[in-house]
């Protein structure tokens, strides 16, 4: 680890420039999950990679100031509860858990196929945050300093 945290200036500048594109790409994969390959999980991984590139380029202390880790934990924990809420909506609407009760729309539209779009978004955000927070917890220990960062 160098004195200045994170990597060189070139890496930091490039990361800042393409971060928005990474998030855009991730959201594109998530939103088109019912029309093309990808969906919640694949898009979520790309989102996590966006966060991780910030952590790798800038180092832990700067990222801790930039992102609110506690808020991320809250959003991540409420993901499955939202999923459960959508499932219970199916229970209330049709009598079976996870019944597709929202409007199905037309084929090939973005806003079609009932509840698959909201579920993809929920899964995408949850997977992205989980992966990032898992790697964040793994890097809490610096072998050179020998203590928890």
């Amino acid at each position, binding site marked *: 680890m160098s004195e200045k945290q994170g990597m060189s200036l070139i890496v930091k500048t490039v990361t800042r420039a393409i971060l928005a594109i990474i998030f855009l790409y991730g959201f594109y994969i998530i939103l088109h999950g019912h029309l*093309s390959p990808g969906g919640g*999980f694949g898009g979520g991984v790309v989102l996590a990679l966006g966060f991780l590139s910030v952590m790798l380029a800038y180092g832990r202390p700067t990222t801790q100031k930039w992102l609110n880790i506690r808020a991320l934990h809250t959003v991540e924990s409420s993901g499955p509860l939202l999923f459960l809420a959508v499932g219970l909506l199916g229970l209330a609407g049709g009598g079976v858990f996870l019944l597709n009760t929202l409007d199905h729309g037309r*084929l*090939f539209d973005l806003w079609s196929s009932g509840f698959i779009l909201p579920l993809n978004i929920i899964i995408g955000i949850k997977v992205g945050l989980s992966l990032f927070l898992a790697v964040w*917890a793994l890097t809490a*220990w610096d072998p050179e300093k020998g203590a928890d960062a």
Partner: protein
Amino acid sequence: MIIYALCFALFLVGLYGLIVKRDLIKIILSTGIMGYAVNLMIVLFGYRREAIYPILEKGKEAAAMVDPLPQALVLTSIVIELGTTALLVALAVQLHKNFKTFDITKIRRLRG
């Protein structure tokens, strides 16, 4: 038939790595190889001769498609293996913190 035998051979390669290697990280990578081999076998079970990818696109006719269910199974299986790998890596980090080594022959405090 030969393809499934090759997948099983890849599985055995991963198993060999798991049993023989002494470094913790190499053991974790061998579990990854075993997972890849089994996922490959599942996807290959869905192949149908002279069929195309199972995606309905605007403007194209619905033709004979390969089986999409194994692909969904493999997606789930990849996520599960990701979780397992993350847990194994976390355990490896903690083991290094406690035993100061990644060598599994030196991590033998439990006996009997």
